[in-house]
C-alpha cells in the first residue's frame, strides 16, 4: 500500500492480458479527469476478448463520486459484453465505499496476492 501514486497525479492505465483475463492496472486519482483513460482502457481490454476483466486499484490514491460513476459505466459496458469484472488492491476505505454503494455486489473484490 505504500506505493500508491500521489493524489495529485491524473489517472493512468496499462493493460496486461493473460489466459482468459485482461488486467487493467490503474494509477493516480480516479475522478472526472480519468473518464477517457478508463474508457480507453476497457476498450483496449475488450479487444483481447477475455471473458474476465480485473481492475487493479493498488496504485490509486483517491476515488471520488465521479470515479464511482466511471466504474459503474465500465460495469454496464462489461455486462453488455458478457464479461465479469473483479477489483483488486482497494484500501479498506474504498472497500467500504464499494460495499455501501453496492459495487461489490456486482464485482468480486479480491485482496492483494489473492486469486479470485
Amino acid at each position, binding site marked *: 500500500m505504500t506505493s500508491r501514486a500521489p*493524489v*495529485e497525479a491524473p489517472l493512468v492505465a496499462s493493460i496486461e492480458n493473460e489466459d482468459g483475463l485482461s488486467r487493467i492496472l490503474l494509477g493516480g*486519482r480516479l*475522478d*472526472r*479527469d480519468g473518464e477517457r483513460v478508463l474508457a480507453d482502457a476497457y476498450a483496449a481490454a475488450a479487444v483481447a476478448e477475455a471473458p474476465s476483466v480485473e481492475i487493479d486499484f493498488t496504485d490509486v490514491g*483517491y476515488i*471520488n*463520486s*465521479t470515479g*464511482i*460513476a*466511471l466504474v*459503474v*459505466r465500465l*460495469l*454496464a459496458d462489461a*455486462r453488455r459484453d458478457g464479461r465479469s469484472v473483479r477489483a483488486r488492491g482497494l*484500501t*479498506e*476505505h474504498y472497500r*467500504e*465505499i464499494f460495499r*455501501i*454503494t*453496492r*459495487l461489490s*455486489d*456486482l464485482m468480486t473484490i479480491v485482496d492483494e496476492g489473492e486469486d479470485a
Partner: protein
Amino acid sequence: MTIIQSLRRSIGLGARAGTEARLDVAAPAADEGPSQTATPASGAHIAPIEIAPDDPLLAVLTSATEIVEVDRLALDSPALHAMRDNDIRMIVPLTAQGELIGALYLGPRLSEQDYSTDDRRLLSSLAGLASPSIRVAQLVQTQATEEAERQRMEQELRVATMIQQQFLPHALPDLPEWQIAAYYGPARAVGGDFYDFVELPDGRIGVIVGDVTDKGVPAALVMARTHSILQAEAPRLIEPGAVLQRANELLCQEMPANMFVTCLYGVLDAARGSFRFANAGHNLPYVRTNGEVGEFRATGMPLGLLPDMTYEEAEGVVGPGDSLLLYSDGFVEAHAQSGEMYGFPRLREAFAVDAVGSDLVDHLLEDLHRFTGADWEQEDDLTMVTLRRSAGAAPLVETRGPVEGDVLLDIEIESILGNERIAMDQVAATVVPLGLTGERLERLKTAVSEAAMNAIEHGSGGRPEVPIHVRVSATPTRLQVRIADMGLGGEIPLGQSEVPDIEAKLRGEQSPRGWGLFLIEAMVDEVATEQTDQGQAVVLNVNLDGGE
C-alpha cells in the same frame, strides 16, 4: 343628348386599378369618384370584368389603334368570355400618352342595328377627348388614396407608440451597489419590444425583456397583454420557468395567427449577485467579467406558439465589477448600408468595454451607429437593459456563521473543479492533531471532498472568482467542518438520499452519477445544512469521543 345615351344597354368604363399590370372593368356606382362615373345610358350595370395581366385581350387592347369588335376576336380570354356573357359588342380603348388607361364597353344599339361608321368615328373622338380627363381623375384619386393610407399609417403609428410607451417602466430600480440602465428606441414602424422590472415579495427584482413578432398596433397589443400577464404572474409564481410556462399557457389561447413573443425573464438577487432566469426563445444575456464576455444559457420555445411548454431555468452570478446585458434582436440584426449585419460578435466585443450605467448604453449605441452609418433607417425596435454590480460590492459568500468551539482552519478556495482536493488535504492536515486518523480520517476526507466538489460545481456555479469557504472548528467532543457557497445550486436535498439504485444505473435508466450526497451522509456522524445571508453551507459533524 349624346350618342352615349342613345346606346341601348350598357357602357362600362374600365378604370386602372393602380397597377400597371391589371385593368379593372368596374360597374360604376353613384358615389364613386369622377374617374369612374360613366353611368350606363340605360341605367343598367355590367358586372366588373377584370382583365388579368396574362389575359391575351390585354395585349390586343394595348396595341389597338381603333375600336375593337368583340365578335371579331378569337382569343382564349376569360375577360372576353365574360364580355360576351354580358352582351358587350364593342371595346373602345382609352389611352393617354400612349398608355392604356381603360376602355369603354358597348352593348348592342337600342335600334338593334349595327354600329355605323359615324358611330365609330364619334366614339373614337369621344375616347380621345375623355382619356386625358380620365387620366387626370385617376391620378387625383390615386393621390387621394395614398394620402388616406399615409394618414391611416401615421395614426396607427401614433397608437402603437402610445401603447408601447405606456408599458415601459417610468423609473428604474434603485438598488444599492448596482447601476441599472435601459434603452428603448422604437423603429419607425414600431416593433413589439418591451422591458420591465417587477418587485417581488421577497425583495428580489424580476427583469423582463421581450419582443413580439410583427409590428404596429397588433404587435403593441400583444406586447401589452404579455406585459400584463408577466406583471401579474411574476410576484405570484416567482420562479422564472413557472412564470414563462404560465404566460405561454395564457398566450397560446389568445395569440393571433403567425405571431409569437420571445421573452427572457430573470430574477435578480441583488445582495448575492445571482440571476436566475428562463428563456422563451430570446437572445441569451451577455455577462462581462474582467473584460471577458460570456453568455448565460437557457433555452425554451417562444411564448404563444405551442401549449404545454416547460422552460429550463439557469442561474448565473454577476460578481463585483461584472455587468449583465439583456437586449433585443433589433440590435444584432441592424444592417450597414453595405447590407452587412451588425451581429452578435460585434455586440459582444462592444460590451467587453468597461463602462457603467448610461455610459454603457451610450457606448453600445455609438458602436452600433458607427457601424450602420449616419443615414441609417432603424429597421426594428432596439431594446437593452444593462445591470452592473459595483466593483466594491460585498463578497459573495458569507464567511461568518455560528462557530462551535475553536476555529482551527478558515480558508477560501477558488471554485475550480479539482480544488475539492485542496479542501480535503487542508482539513486532513488540520484534524490529525485531534487524533482523527485511520479509517475515520479517510471517511472525513471523502465527505469533505464530496461536499466541496458539490459547492464548487453547483453552489458557486464553477466560477473561480466566487470562492467556497471552508472552516474547521472543534470542541473536546465534536469536530465540525463547514463548507459554504453561494447557494446557486438550490437547496441541498440532504436527508432524502436513499441508496442509489445501481441496477437502474447499469441498465441506463439513471445517470451513473449521483453518489455525492449519499457518500457525504454515509461518511460522517451527522450532516446539516445552514442558510446564510449569502448562500448555503453544509456542516459535517464528527464525534471525537467515539474513538475508533
